[in-house]
Protein backbone atom coordinates (compact mmCIF):
# COMPACT_ATOMS: atom_id res chain seq x y z
CA UNK A 1 0.00 0.00 0.00
CA UNK A 2 2.86 2.37 0.78
CA UNK A 3 4.28 2.00 -2.73
CA UNK A 4 0.90 2.69 -4.29
CA UNK A 5 0.48 5.67 -1.97
CA UNK A 6 3.90 6.99 -2.97
CA UNK A 7 2.86 6.72 -6.64
CA UNK A 8 -0.33 8.68 -6.02
CA UNK A 9 1.50 11.32 -3.99
CA UNK A 10 3.98 11.69 -6.85
CA UNK A 11 1.07 12.27 -9.23
CA UNK A 12 -0.41 14.96 -7.02
CA UNK A 13 2.90 16.58 -6.16
CA UNK A 14 4.05 16.90 -9.77
CA UNK A 15 0.76 18.24 -11.05
CA UNK A 16 0.66 21.99 -11.49
CA UNK A 17 -3.10 22.06 -10.86
CA UNK A 18 -2.55 20.93 -7.27
CA UNK A 19 -0.31 23.89 -6.52
CA UNK A 20 -2.46 26.34 -8.47
CA UNK A 21 -5.54 25.31 -6.49
CA UNK A 22 -3.63 25.55 -3.22
CA UNK A 23 -2.25 29.00 -4.04
CA UNK A 24 -5.59 30.28 -5.30
CA UNK A 25 -7.40 28.96 -2.21
CA UNK A 26 -4.84 30.63 0.05
CA UNK A 27 -5.16 33.85 -1.92
CA UNK A 28 -8.96 33.83 -1.79
CA UNK A 29 -8.94 33.16 1.94
CA UNK A 30 -6.46 35.89 2.79
CA UNK A 31 -8.15 38.38 0.50
CA UNK A 32 -11.62 37.76 1.94
CA UNK A 33 -10.58 37.25 5.56
CA UNK A 34 -7.95 39.98 5.88
CA UNK A 35 -7.18 42.14 2.85
CA UNK A 36 -10.69 43.32 1.99
CA UNK A 37 -11.82 43.77 5.63
CA UNK A 38 -8.61 45.68 6.38
CA UNK A 39 -9.15 48.02 3.43
CA UNK A 40 -12.76 48.48 4.55
CA UNK A 41 -11.51 49.30 8.02
CA UNK A 42 -8.88 51.73 6.78
CA UNK A 43 -10.84 53.24 3.94
CA UNK A 44 -14.00 54.53 5.60
CA UNK A 45 -13.52 56.73 8.66
CA UNK A 46 -17.23 56.79 9.60
CA UNK A 47 -17.36 52.98 9.32
CA UNK A 48 -14.21 52.72 11.43
CA UNK A 49 -15.71 54.90 14.09
CA UNK A 50 -18.96 52.91 14.19
CA UNK A 51 -18.03 49.18 13.94
CA UNK A 52 -14.38 49.30 12.98
CA UNK A 53 -13.23 48.16 16.39
CA UNK A 54 -15.14 44.90 16.06
CA UNK A 55 -13.82 44.39 12.55
CA UNK A 56 -10.24 45.00 13.60
CA UNK A 57 -10.62 42.62 16.52
CA UNK A 58 -11.76 39.83 14.19
CA UNK A 59 -8.60 40.29 12.13
CA UNK A 60 -6.22 39.95 15.08
CA UNK A 61 -4.24 36.74 15.71
CA UNK A 62 -6.28 35.55 18.69
CA UNK A 63 -9.34 35.47 16.41
CA UNK A 64 -7.58 33.48 13.69
CA UNK A 65 -9.97 30.53 13.92
CA UNK A 66 -13.17 32.53 13.61
CA UNK A 67 -11.71 34.52 10.73
CA UNK A 68 -10.81 31.51 8.66
CA UNK A 69 -13.23 28.74 9.53
CA UNK A 70 -16.11 30.12 7.51
CA UNK A 71 -14.22 29.70 4.27
CA UNK A 72 -13.81 25.94 4.58
CA UNK A 73 -17.40 24.76 4.10
CA UNK A 74 -17.83 27.19 1.20
CA UNK A 75 -14.78 27.96 -0.93
CA UNK A 76 -12.42 25.43 0.60
CA UNK A 77 -14.82 22.63 -0.15
CA UNK A 78 -15.10 23.66 -3.77
CA UNK A 79 -11.33 23.95 -4.22
CA UNK A 80 -10.78 20.52 -2.76
CA UNK A 81 -13.65 19.08 -4.76
CA UNK A 82 -11.90 20.30 -7.91
CA UNK A 83 -8.63 18.81 -6.70
CA UNK A 84 -10.28 15.44 -6.10
CA UNK A 85 -12.10 15.49 -9.42
CA UNK A 86 -8.87 16.30 -11.26
CA UNK A 87 -7.01 13.53 -9.44
CA UNK A 88 -9.63 10.85 -10.06
CA UNK A 89 -11.44 12.05 -13.17
CA UNK A 90 -8.27 12.62 -15.17
CA UNK A 91 -7.53 8.91 -14.91
CA UNK A 92 -10.61 8.36 -17.06
CA UNK A 93 -9.89 11.27 -19.40
CA UNK A 94 -6.33 10.18 -20.07
CA UNK A 95 -7.06 6.46 -20.06
CA UNK A 96 -4.43 5.95 -17.37
CA UNK A 97 -6.56 3.49 -15.46
CA UNK A 98 -5.48 0.91 -18.03
CA UNK A 99 -1.78 0.98 -17.09
CA UNK A 100 -2.63 1.55 -13.41
CA UNK A 101 -4.88 -1.51 -13.26
CA UNK A 102 -2.50 -3.77 -15.20
CA UNK A 103 0.55 -3.51 -12.99
CA UNK A 104 0.18 -5.59 -9.87
CA UNK A 105 -1.84 -3.56 -7.40
CA UNK A 106 -5.52 -4.45 -7.27
CA UNK A 107 -8.10 -1.93 -8.39
CA UNK A 108 -9.16 -1.21 -4.83
CA UNK A 109 -5.57 -0.75 -3.77
CA UNK A 110 -5.04 1.79 -6.54
CA UNK A 111 -8.30 3.52 -5.66
CA UNK A 112 -7.76 3.73 -1.92
CA UNK A 113 -4.13 4.76 -2.34
CA UNK A 114 -5.44 7.68 -4.38
CA UNK A 115 -8.01 8.51 -1.71
CA UNK A 116 -5.33 8.34 0.96
CA UNK A 117 -3.04 10.54 -1.12
CA UNK A 118 -5.86 13.08 -1.43
CA UNK A 119 -6.40 12.95 2.33
CA UNK A 120 -2.73 13.80 2.76
CA UNK A 121 -2.78 16.41 -0.01
CA UNK A 122 -5.53 18.40 1.71
CA UNK A 123 -3.43 18.80 4.84
CA UNK A 124 -1.56 21.76 3.29
CA UNK A 125 -4.92 23.15 2.17
CA UNK A 126 -5.63 23.49 5.89
CA UNK A 127 -2.25 24.19 7.42
CA UNK A 128 -1.03 26.68 4.82
CA UNK A 129 -4.22 28.71 5.03
CA UNK A 130 -3.96 28.97 8.81
CA UNK A 131 -0.28 29.79 8.57
CA UNK A 132 -0.85 32.49 5.98
CA UNK A 133 -3.82 33.79 7.94
CA UNK A 134 -1.68 33.96 11.06
CA UNK A 135 0.99 35.92 9.20
CA UNK A 136 -1.63 38.32 7.83
CA UNK A 137 -3.22 38.80 11.25
CA UNK A 138 0.18 39.41 12.84
CA UNK A 139 1.01 42.03 10.21
CA UNK A 140 -2.30 43.78 10.85
CA UNK A 141 -1.83 43.63 14.63
CA UNK A 142 1.68 45.04 14.37
CA UNK A 143 0.59 47.71 11.91
CA UNK A 144 -2.31 48.80 14.10
CA UNK A 145 -0.43 48.46 17.38
CA UNK A 146 -2.83 45.79 18.62
CA UNK A 147 -2.32 42.65 20.66
CA UNK A 148 -0.36 39.84 18.99
CA UNK A 149 -1.69 37.23 21.37
CA UNK A 150 -1.90 33.91 19.48
CA UNK A 151 -5.13 31.91 19.27
CA UNK A 152 -5.96 29.36 21.93
CA UNK A 153 -3.94 26.26 21.07
CA UNK A 154 -6.70 23.73 21.80
CA UNK A 155 -9.15 25.76 19.76
CA UNK A 156 -6.63 25.93 16.92
CA UNK A 157 -5.99 22.19 17.00
CA UNK A 158 -9.73 21.45 16.86
CA UNK A 159 -10.18 24.00 14.10
CA UNK A 160 -7.42 22.36 12.05
CA UNK A 161 -8.97 18.94 12.56
CA UNK A 162 -12.50 20.08 11.73
CA UNK A 163 -11.28 22.00 8.69
CA UNK A 164 -9.49 18.91 7.40
CA UNK A 165 -12.57 16.80 8.05
CA UNK A 166 -14.81 19.18 6.11
CA UNK A 167 -12.40 19.22 3.17
CA UNK A 168 -12.18 15.42 3.32
CA UNK A 169 -15.95 15.17 2.86
CA UNK A 170 -15.81 17.44 -0.17
CA UNK A 171 -12.86 15.49 -1.59
CA UNK A 172 -14.82 12.24 -1.19
CA UNK A 173 -17.76 13.85 -2.94
CA UNK A 174 -15.44 14.92 -5.77
CA UNK A 175 -14.02 11.41 -6.09
CA UNK A 176 -17.50 9.93 -6.31
CA UNK A 177 -18.89 12.29 -8.93
CA UNK A 178 -15.75 11.97 -11.08
CA UNK A 179 -16.04 8.18 -10.97
CA UNK A 180 -19.74 8.38 -11.78
CA UNK A 181 -19.17 10.76 -14.69
CA UNK A 182 -15.92 9.06 -15.83
CA UNK A 183 -14.15 12.37 -16.30
CA UNK A 184 -13.46 15.86 -15.02
CA UNK A 185 -15.56 18.44 -16.86
CA UNK A 186 -19.03 17.28 -15.93
CA UNK A 187 -17.96 16.42 -12.39
CA UNK A 188 -16.45 19.85 -11.76
CA UNK A 189 -19.50 21.55 -13.24
CA UNK A 190 -21.91 19.49 -11.16
CA UNK A 191 -19.81 19.92 -8.03
CA UNK A 192 -19.69 23.69 -8.35
CA UNK A 193 -23.38 23.94 -9.13
CA UNK A 194 -24.19 21.79 -6.13
CA UNK A 195 -21.80 23.53 -3.74
CA UNK A 196 -22.35 27.13 -4.71
CA UNK A 197 -25.86 27.22 -6.14
CA UNK A 198 -28.06 24.26 -5.32
CA UNK A 199 -27.32 24.06 -1.59
CA UNK A 200 -27.68 27.81 -1.23
CA UNK A 201 -31.01 27.96 -3.04
CA UNK A 202 -32.50 24.99 -1.21
CA UNK A 203 -31.18 26.22 2.16
CA UNK A 204 -32.75 29.62 1.52
CA UNK A 205 -36.17 28.00 1.20
CA UNK A 206 -35.63 25.41 3.90
CA UNK A 207 -37.42 27.45 6.57
CA UNK A 208 -40.47 27.92 4.37
CA UNK A 209 -40.76 24.42 2.94
CA UNK A 210 -40.59 21.60 5.49
CA UNK A 211 -39.40 18.99 2.99
CA UNK A 212 -36.49 21.17 1.92
CA UNK A 213 -35.70 21.70 5.59
CA UNK A 214 -35.27 17.95 6.05
CA UNK A 215 -33.31 17.69 2.84
CA UNK A 216 -30.94 20.49 3.78
CA UNK A 217 -30.02 18.62 6.96
CA UNK A 218 -27.95 16.17 4.93
CA UNK A 219 -26.26 18.86 2.87
CA UNK A 220 -22.53 19.22 3.06
CA UNK A 221 -22.53 22.92 3.88
CA UNK A 222 -25.32 22.66 6.44
CA UNK A 223 -23.47 19.95 8.32
CA UNK A 224 -20.09 21.56 7.83
CA UNK A 225 -21.24 24.84 9.36
CA UNK A 226 -23.07 22.97 12.11
CA UNK A 227 -19.91 21.02 12.90
CA UNK A 228 -18.06 24.25 13.51
CA UNK A 229 -20.55 25.67 16.00
CA UNK A 230 -18.81 24.18 19.12
CA UNK A 231 -15.76 26.23 18.19
CA UNK A 232 -17.73 29.31 19.09
CA UNK A 233 -17.98 30.47 15.52
CA UNK A 234 -21.18 31.98 14.23
CA UNK A 235 -21.94 32.57 10.60
CA UNK A 236 -24.20 35.24 9.35
CA UNK A 237 -25.91 35.14 6.00
CA UNK A 238 -23.95 38.07 4.72
CA UNK A 239 -20.87 37.94 2.55
CA UNK A 240 -18.54 35.15 1.53
CA UNK A 241 -18.38 32.34 4.06
CA UNK A 242 -21.75 33.34 5.46
CA UNK A 243 -24.48 30.80 5.95
CA UNK A 244 -28.18 31.41 6.40
CA UNK A 245 -29.55 27.88 6.25
CA UNK A 246 -30.83 25.81 9.13
CA UNK A 247 -28.32 23.99 11.29
CA UNK A 248 -28.16 20.73 13.22
CA UNK A 249 -26.25 19.75 16.35
CA UNK A 250 -22.50 19.36 16.02
CA UNK A 251 -22.70 15.68 16.95
CA UNK A 252 -25.33 15.01 14.32
CA UNK A 253 -23.31 16.96 11.79
CA UNK A 254 -20.18 14.93 12.55
CA UNK A 255 -22.10 11.67 12.18
CA UNK A 256 -23.78 12.75 8.94
CA UNK A 257 -20.50 13.93 7.44
CA UNK A 258 -18.72 10.72 8.47
CA UNK A 259 -21.51 8.65 6.92
CA UNK A 260 -21.28 10.74 3.77
CA UNK A 261 -17.56 10.09 3.46
CA UNK A 262 -18.18 6.36 3.81
CA UNK A 263 -21.06 6.38 1.33
CA UNK A 264 -19.25 8.51 -1.27
CA UNK A 265 -16.14 6.33 -1.13
CA UNK A 266 -18.07 3.06 -0.99
CA UNK A 267 -20.09 3.98 -4.08
CA UNK A 268 -16.97 5.07 -5.95
CA UNK A 269 -15.00 1.99 -4.86
CA UNK A 270 -17.79 -0.36 -5.89
CA UNK A 271 -17.94 1.23 -9.34
CA UNK A 272 -14.16 1.26 -9.78
CA UNK A 273 -13.99 -2.40 -8.80
CA UNK A 274 -16.80 -3.59 -11.05
CA UNK A 275 -16.87 -1.34 -14.09
CA UNK A 276 -15.13 -2.36 -17.31
CA UNK A 277 -12.10 -0.27 -18.24
CA UNK A 278 -12.36 0.39 -21.94
CA UNK A 279 -9.82 3.14 -22.56
CA UNK A 280 -9.86 6.93 -22.45
CA UNK A 281 -13.32 8.46 -22.14
Amino acid at each position, binding site marked *: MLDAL*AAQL*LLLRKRAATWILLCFWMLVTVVFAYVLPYFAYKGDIRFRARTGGVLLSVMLPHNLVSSLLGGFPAFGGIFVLILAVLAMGSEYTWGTLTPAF*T*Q*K*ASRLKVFFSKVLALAIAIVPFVVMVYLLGYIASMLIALKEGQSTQPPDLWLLVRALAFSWFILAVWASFGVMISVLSKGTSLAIGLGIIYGLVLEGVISAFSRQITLLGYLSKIFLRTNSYSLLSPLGVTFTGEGPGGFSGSTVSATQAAIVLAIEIVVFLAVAAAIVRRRDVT*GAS
Partner: protein
Amino acid sequence: MNGDINDMKQPMDNFIVETKNLTKRYRPDILAVNGLAMRIRRGEVYGFVGPNGAGKTTTLRMLLGLVRPSAGECTVLGEKPGTPAALARMGTLVETPAFYPYLSGRDNLRVLARLSDTPYSRIDPALEEVELLKRAGHKFKSYSLGMKQRLGMAAALLKDPELLILDEPTNGLDPAGMAEMRRLIRSLGRGERTVMLSSHLMGELEQICDRVGVVKNGSLIAEGSLDDLRHGAQLRLKAEPEARAREVLEKIEGVAGAEPVNGYLVIDASPARAAEINRILVEAGVAVSELGPVKLSLENVFLNLTGEEA
Protein backbone atom coordinates in the same frame (compact mmCIF):
# COMPACT_ATOMS: atom_id res chain seq x y z
CA MET B 1 -7.00 -25.53 -38.05
CA ASN B 2 -8.69 -24.39 -34.89
CA GLY B 3 -7.31 -26.34 -31.93
CA ASP B 4 -5.27 -28.88 -33.89
CA ILE B 5 -4.26 -32.32 -32.64
CA ASN B 6 -0.76 -31.22 -31.66
CA ASP B 7 -2.21 -28.51 -29.45
CA MET B 8 -4.33 -31.05 -27.65
CA LYS B 9 -1.24 -33.09 -26.82
CA GLN B 10 0.41 -30.19 -25.05
CA PRO B 11 0.31 -30.42 -21.26
CA MET B 12 -2.11 -27.90 -19.87
CA ASP B 13 0.56 -25.91 -18.02
CA ASN B 14 2.28 -25.33 -21.33
CA PHE B 15 -0.51 -22.98 -22.35
CA ILE B 16 0.17 -19.60 -20.91
CA VAL B 17 -3.14 -18.18 -22.09
CA GLU B 18 -6.25 -20.29 -22.46
CA THR B 19 -9.79 -19.20 -23.15
CA LYS B 20 -12.91 -21.32 -23.42
CA ASN B 21 -16.13 -19.99 -24.85
CA LEU B 22 -15.01 -16.49 -23.89
CA THR B 23 -17.85 -14.09 -24.54
CA LYS B 24 -18.40 -10.39 -24.03
CA ARG B 25 -21.69 -8.72 -24.67
CA TYR B 26 -21.70 -4.97 -23.98
CA ARG B 27 -25.38 -4.47 -24.64
CA PRO B 28 -28.04 -6.86 -25.89
CA ASP B 29 -27.21 -5.76 -29.44
CA ILE B 30 -23.41 -5.59 -29.14
CA LEU B 31 -21.65 -8.94 -29.04
CA ALA B 32 -17.97 -8.01 -29.05
CA VAL B 33 -16.51 -11.46 -28.40
CA ASN B 34 -18.41 -14.62 -29.17
CA GLY B 35 -17.34 -17.94 -27.64
CA LEU B 36 -13.65 -17.40 -28.30
CA ALA B 37 -11.45 -20.46 -27.73
CA MET B 38 -7.75 -19.76 -27.91
CA ARG B 39 -4.57 -21.23 -26.48
CA ILE B 40 -1.16 -19.66 -26.47
CA ARG B 41 1.90 -21.76 -25.76
CA ARG B 42 4.69 -20.76 -23.47
CA GLY B 43 7.57 -19.13 -25.31
CA GLU B 44 5.84 -18.46 -28.61
CA VAL B 45 5.13 -15.21 -30.42
CA TYR B 46 1.42 -15.37 -31.14
CA GLY B 47 -0.16 -13.08 -33.68
CA PHE B 48 -3.75 -12.06 -33.08
CA VAL B 49 -5.33 -10.66 -36.21
CA GLY B 50 -8.75 -9.63 -37.37
CA PRO B 51 -10.58 -6.80 -39.07
CA ASN B 52 -11.55 -3.65 -37.19
CA GLY B 53 -14.27 -4.39 -34.67
CA ALA B 54 -13.53 -8.11 -34.68
CA GLY B 55 -13.13 -8.14 -30.91
CA LYS B 56 -9.34 -8.19 -30.62
CA THR B 57 -8.95 -5.35 -28.13
CA THR B 58 -11.91 -6.52 -26.05
CA THR B 59 -10.30 -9.96 -25.90
CA LEU B 60 -6.98 -8.46 -24.81
CA ARG B 61 -8.75 -6.37 -22.18
CA MET B 62 -10.46 -9.49 -20.84
CA LEU B 63 -7.08 -11.22 -20.63
CA LEU B 64 -5.86 -8.30 -18.54
CA GLY B 65 -8.90 -8.26 -16.28
CA LEU B 66 -9.91 -4.80 -17.47
CA VAL B 67 -13.14 -6.06 -18.99
CA ARG B 68 -15.24 -8.75 -17.37
CA PRO B 69 -16.40 -11.59 -19.62
CA SER B 70 -20.15 -12.09 -19.94
CA ALA B 71 -19.56 -15.83 -20.20
CA GLY B 72 -16.81 -18.37 -20.62
CA GLU B 73 -13.52 -19.03 -18.93
CA CYS B 74 -10.09 -17.57 -19.22
CA THR B 75 -6.77 -18.23 -17.54
CA VAL B 76 -3.58 -16.23 -17.93
CA LEU B 77 -0.35 -17.68 -16.55
CA GLY B 78 -2.52 -20.18 -14.74
CA GLU B 79 -4.32 -17.42 -12.87
CA LYS B 80 -7.60 -15.60 -13.16
CA PRO B 81 -7.12 -12.50 -15.34
CA GLY B 82 -6.59 -9.25 -13.49
CA THR B 83 -5.37 -10.83 -10.28
CA PRO B 84 -2.16 -9.42 -8.81
CA ALA B 85 -0.52 -12.85 -9.27
CA ALA B 86 -1.19 -12.77 -13.01
CA LEU B 87 -0.53 -9.07 -13.55
CA ALA B 88 2.82 -9.22 -11.75
CA ARG B 89 4.14 -11.49 -14.52
CA MET B 90 2.65 -9.62 -17.47
CA GLY B 91 3.63 -6.58 -19.47
CA THR B 92 1.05 -4.85 -21.60
CA LEU B 93 0.55 -2.21 -24.21
CA VAL B 94 -3.11 -1.92 -25.12
CA GLU B 95 -4.29 0.50 -27.79
CA THR B 96 -2.82 4.00 -27.54
CA PRO B 97 -0.21 4.32 -24.79
CA ALA B 98 -1.89 6.11 -21.87
CA PHE B 99 0.33 8.12 -19.55
CA TYR B 100 0.15 11.24 -17.41
CA PRO B 101 0.90 14.10 -19.81
CA TYR B 102 2.41 16.40 -17.18
CA LEU B 103 4.94 13.82 -16.02
CA SER B 104 8.20 12.98 -17.76
CA GLY B 105 8.61 9.59 -19.36
CA ARG B 106 10.79 8.50 -16.45
CA ASP B 107 8.31 9.73 -13.83
CA ASN B 108 5.51 7.90 -15.61
CA LEU B 109 7.52 4.71 -15.33
CA ARG B 110 8.23 5.51 -11.67
CA VAL B 111 4.49 5.58 -11.01
CA LEU B 112 4.05 2.22 -12.72
CA ALA B 113 7.08 0.79 -10.93
CA ARG B 114 5.54 1.78 -7.61
CA LEU B 115 2.25 0.13 -8.54
CA SER B 116 4.00 -3.08 -9.58
CA ASP B 117 6.62 -3.30 -6.80
CA THR B 118 9.33 -3.03 -9.43
CA PRO B 119 12.64 -1.48 -8.36
CA TYR B 120 13.48 1.88 -9.90
CA SER B 121 16.70 0.31 -11.18
CA ARG B 122 14.63 -1.38 -13.92
CA ILE B 123 13.48 1.93 -15.36
CA ASP B 124 16.57 3.10 -17.22
CA PRO B 125 17.32 -0.29 -18.82
CA ALA B 126 13.72 -0.41 -20.07
CA LEU B 127 14.04 3.11 -21.48
CA GLU B 128 17.35 2.21 -23.07
CA GLU B 129 15.85 -0.88 -24.66
CA VAL B 130 13.39 1.32 -26.57
CA GLU B 131 15.98 4.07 -27.16
CA LEU B 132 14.16 6.68 -25.13
CA LEU B 133 16.72 7.29 -22.44
CA LYS B 134 17.80 10.67 -23.80
CA ARG B 135 14.24 12.02 -23.74
CA ALA B 136 13.26 10.31 -20.50
CA GLY B 137 13.28 13.58 -18.58
CA HIS B 138 10.94 15.34 -21.00
CA LYS B 139 7.23 15.58 -20.39
CA PHE B 140 5.08 12.90 -21.99
CA LYS B 141 2.89 15.51 -23.66
CA SER B 142 5.90 16.70 -25.67
CA TYR B 143 6.52 13.25 -27.15
CA SER B 144 5.78 12.33 -30.75
CA LEU B 145 3.38 9.44 -31.37
CA GLY B 146 6.32 7.14 -32.02
CA MET B 147 7.99 8.14 -28.76
CA LYS B 148 4.75 7.59 -26.87
CA GLN B 149 4.56 4.13 -28.40
CA ARG B 150 8.13 3.41 -27.34
CA LEU B 151 7.40 4.59 -23.81
CA GLY B 152 4.45 2.19 -23.83
CA MET B 153 6.83 -0.60 -24.78
CA ALA B 154 9.24 0.45 -22.01
CA ALA B 155 6.34 0.30 -19.55
CA ALA B 156 5.43 -3.16 -20.82
CA LEU B 157 9.02 -4.32 -20.31
CA LEU B 158 9.39 -2.78 -16.87
CA LYS B 159 8.46 -5.91 -14.94
CA ASP B 160 10.63 -8.15 -17.13
CA PRO B 161 7.41 -10.07 -17.78
CA GLU B 162 6.88 -13.69 -18.74
CA LEU B 163 3.99 -12.67 -20.97
CA LEU B 164 3.86 -9.58 -23.13
CA ILE B 165 0.52 -8.51 -24.56
CA LEU B 166 0.99 -5.90 -27.26
CA ASP B 167 -1.81 -4.24 -29.17
CA GLU B 168 -0.63 -2.55 -32.36
CA PRO B 169 2.85 -1.77 -31.00
CA THR B 170 4.08 -0.24 -34.25
CA ASN B 171 1.31 2.36 -34.42
CA GLY B 172 2.76 5.76 -35.21
CA LEU B 173 6.28 4.51 -35.84
CA ASP B 174 8.18 5.48 -38.97
CA PRO B 175 9.57 2.67 -41.16
CA ALA B 176 12.88 2.63 -39.28
CA GLY B 177 11.03 2.61 -35.98
CA MET B 178 8.81 -0.22 -37.17
CA ALA B 179 11.83 -2.28 -38.20
CA GLU B 180 13.42 -1.57 -34.83
CA MET B 181 10.22 -2.54 -33.01
CA ARG B 182 10.01 -5.79 -35.00
CA ARG B 183 13.60 -6.55 -34.03
CA LEU B 184 12.78 -5.77 -30.42
CA ILE B 185 9.68 -7.96 -30.36
CA ARG B 186 11.54 -10.80 -32.04
CA SER B 187 14.30 -10.55 -29.46
CA LEU B 188 11.75 -10.36 -26.65
CA GLY B 189 10.03 -13.47 -27.95
CA ARG B 190 13.17 -15.55 -27.74
CA GLY B 191 13.58 -17.95 -24.86
CA GLU B 192 10.83 -18.49 -22.33
CA ARG B 193 9.00 -15.22 -22.78
CA THR B 194 5.65 -15.38 -24.53
CA VAL B 195 4.44 -12.53 -26.72
CA MET B 196 0.87 -12.02 -27.82
CA LEU B 197 0.81 -9.48 -30.59
CA SER B 198 -2.24 -7.90 -32.11
CA SER B 199 -1.71 -6.06 -35.35
CA HIS B 200 -3.26 -5.13 -38.65
CA LEU B 201 0.06 -5.31 -40.41
CA MET B 202 0.27 -8.78 -41.87
CA GLY B 203 3.79 -8.30 -43.15
CA GLU B 204 4.81 -7.41 -39.65
CA LEU B 205 3.20 -10.50 -38.14
CA GLU B 206 4.59 -12.70 -40.89
CA GLN B 207 8.08 -11.71 -39.88
CA ILE B 208 7.63 -12.08 -36.15
CA CYS B 209 5.05 -14.68 -35.22
CA ASP B 210 5.31 -18.41 -34.64
CA ARG B 211 1.56 -18.93 -34.70
CA VAL B 212 -1.39 -16.81 -35.63
CA GLY B 213 -5.03 -16.70 -34.57
CA VAL B 214 -7.55 -15.04 -36.85
CA VAL B 215 -10.60 -13.54 -35.23
CA LYS B 216 -13.76 -12.40 -36.96
CA ASN B 217 -17.03 -11.26 -35.44
CA GLY B 218 -15.66 -12.11 -32.02
CA SER B 219 -14.82 -15.73 -32.82
CA LEU B 220 -11.54 -17.42 -33.64
CA ILE B 221 -11.96 -18.68 -37.18
CA ALA B 222 -8.46 -20.03 -37.69
CA GLU B 223 -5.41 -20.75 -35.61
CA GLY B 224 -2.14 -22.35 -36.50
CA SER B 225 1.46 -21.93 -37.51
CA LEU B 226 2.21 -19.60 -40.36
CA ASP B 227 3.05 -22.55 -42.61
CA ASP B 228 -0.24 -24.24 -41.74
CA LEU B 229 -2.21 -21.15 -42.58
CA ARG B 230 -0.33 -20.18 -45.71
CA HIS B 231 -0.67 -23.58 -47.35
CA GLY B 232 -4.14 -23.19 -48.71
CA ALA B 233 -6.11 -25.82 -50.55
CA GLN B 234 -4.54 -24.95 -53.90
CA LEU B 235 -1.85 -26.45 -56.11
CA ARG B 236 0.07 -24.82 -58.90
CA LEU B 237 1.75 -26.64 -61.73
CA LYS B 238 3.63 -26.17 -65.00
CA ALA B 239 2.53 -28.60 -67.66
CA GLU B 240 2.86 -29.05 -71.41
CA PRO B 241 0.73 -28.92 -73.44
CA GLU B 242 -1.29 -26.61 -71.21
CA ALA B 243 -4.59 -27.04 -73.05
CA ARG B 244 -4.41 -30.83 -72.69
CA ALA B 245 -3.47 -30.42 -69.03
CA ARG B 246 -6.53 -28.27 -68.37
CA GLU B 247 -8.73 -30.75 -70.18
CA VAL B 248 -7.45 -33.62 -68.00
CA LEU B 249 -7.60 -31.64 -64.78
CA GLU B 250 -11.22 -30.66 -65.31
CA LYS B 251 -12.15 -34.34 -65.43
CA ILE B 252 -10.51 -35.23 -62.12
CA GLU B 253 -13.06 -35.51 -59.33
CA GLY B 254 -12.57 -32.99 -56.54
CA VAL B 255 -10.36 -30.74 -58.61
CA ALA B 256 -11.59 -27.36 -59.79
CA GLY B 257 -10.17 -24.23 -61.29
CA ALA B 258 -7.23 -24.87 -63.59
CA GLU B 259 -6.75 -21.16 -64.14
CA PRO B 260 -3.51 -19.90 -65.71
CA VAL B 261 -1.73 -17.51 -63.33
CA ASN B 262 1.74 -16.12 -64.11
CA GLY B 263 2.69 -19.04 -66.34
CA TYR B 264 1.31 -21.64 -63.91
CA LEU B 265 -1.97 -23.50 -63.76
CA VAL B 266 -3.58 -23.00 -60.37
CA ILE B 267 -6.12 -25.59 -59.26
CA ASP B 268 -8.32 -25.94 -56.21
CA ALA B 269 -7.15 -29.20 -54.73
CA SER B 270 -5.63 -30.41 -51.52
CA PRO B 271 -1.82 -30.47 -51.57
CA ALA B 272 -2.17 -34.06 -50.28
CA ARG B 273 -3.41 -35.07 -53.73
CA ALA B 274 -0.38 -33.73 -55.58
CA ALA B 275 1.12 -37.17 -56.32
CA GLU B 276 -2.19 -38.55 -57.57
CA ILE B 277 -2.78 -35.58 -59.87
CA ASN B 278 0.78 -35.79 -61.19
CA ARG B 279 0.27 -39.49 -62.03
CA ILE B 280 -3.03 -38.84 -63.88
CA LEU B 281 -1.51 -36.04 -65.92
CA VAL B 282 1.56 -38.09 -66.89
CA GLU B 283 -0.61 -41.07 -67.82
CA ALA B 284 -2.64 -38.70 -70.04
CA GLY B 285 0.52 -37.67 -71.89
CA VAL B 286 1.03 -34.34 -70.15
CA ALA B 287 4.58 -33.41 -69.17
CA VAL B 288 4.60 -31.94 -65.64
CA SER B 289 7.69 -29.89 -64.85
CA GLU B 290 6.56 -28.33 -61.53
CA LEU B 291 3.84 -29.20 -59.07
CA GLY B 292 3.43 -27.89 -55.55
CA PRO B 293 1.15 -26.16 -53.05
CA VAL B 294 0.34 -22.49 -53.49
CA LYS B 295 1.96 -20.60 -50.60
CA LEU B 296 -0.29 -17.69 -49.74
CA SER B 297 0.89 -14.57 -48.07
CA LEU B 298 -0.54 -14.06 -44.58
CA GLU B 299 -2.42 -11.11 -45.97
CA ASN B 300 -4.13 -13.34 -48.53
CA VAL B 301 -4.87 -15.91 -45.87
CA PHE B 302 -6.39 -13.18 -43.74
CA LEU B 303 -8.45 -11.79 -46.60
CA ASN B 304 -9.66 -15.25 -47.60
CA LEU B 305 -10.64 -16.13 -44.06
CA THR B 306 -12.30 -12.89 -43.14
CA GLY B 307 -13.90 -12.25 -46.51
CA GLU B 308 -12.41 -8.75 -46.55
CA GLU B 309 -11.67 -6.94 -49.80
CA ALA B 310 -8.00 -6.46 -50.67
